[in-house]
């Protein structure tokens, strides 16, 4: 082991050190990534899926710009889309903001945010999860 190096402010330690600097990283840094089960890459071959916007649980509620469900008729909120969005449409919507057929750009953004907020157990969640691919 190399000789001990004492911390010396301005010291001119002549003996070369074999110690390395350990960078502990910033508080917000991410140094641990856990491998999760992945269906995304194979999803196109196994899943023909649709996402209803909103799901059956919504009971006629509208979708606000941030994706939350709000009372029907709320100004600025998107009405339920009369059909489920197909997987490919959702992919284009989420990746490039492509407005699906039969809707307008503002509503499309509300639907996109609704989809991003889907939780496990909600209709469309598996479809959404399967569309997740790394950029």
């Amino acid at each position, binding site marked *: 082991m190399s000789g001990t190096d004492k911390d010396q402010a301005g010291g001119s330690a002549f003996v070369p050190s074999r*110690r390395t600097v350990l960078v*502990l990283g910033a*508080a917000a840094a991410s140094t641990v990534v856990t491998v999760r089960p992945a269906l995304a890459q194979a999803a196109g071959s196994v899943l023909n899926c649709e996402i209803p916007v909103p799901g059956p649980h919504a009971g006629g509620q509208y979708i606000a710009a941030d994706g939350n469900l709000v009372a029907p008729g709320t100004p600025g909120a998107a009405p339920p889309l009369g059909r489920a969005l197909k997987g490919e449409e959702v992919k284009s919507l989420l990746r490039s903001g492509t407005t699906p057929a039969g809707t307008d750009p503002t509503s499309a953004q509300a639907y996109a945010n609704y989809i991003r907020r889907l939780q496990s157990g909600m209709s469309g969640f598996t479809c959404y999860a399967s569309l997740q691919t790394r950029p």
Partner: protein
Amino acid sequence: MASPVYIADSGSAVLTVALDGLSVLFHAPSGMTHIVATPAPEILDALQTGPADAPELIRRLRERYDFEGDEAEGALHARLDELEAAGLVRRA
């Protein structure tokens, strides 16, 4: 407020393979694989000799490494939080 004491599984419970610049770890008790960057492997290594709280960990790490700046304890806590969330480290 006392600093919590951390424990890492040792020996065959964790398999480590160094790949270019990162390490991949298999944690046998959970069956999970983690891809980790410095200083995670060094911290886990420093916990091999036994449980330690943050000040003790810093002392152990200082035996081998230098730290830049004086944010060591704060940064170490952030790293320990990550390792704890991943299940690689737990509190005594």
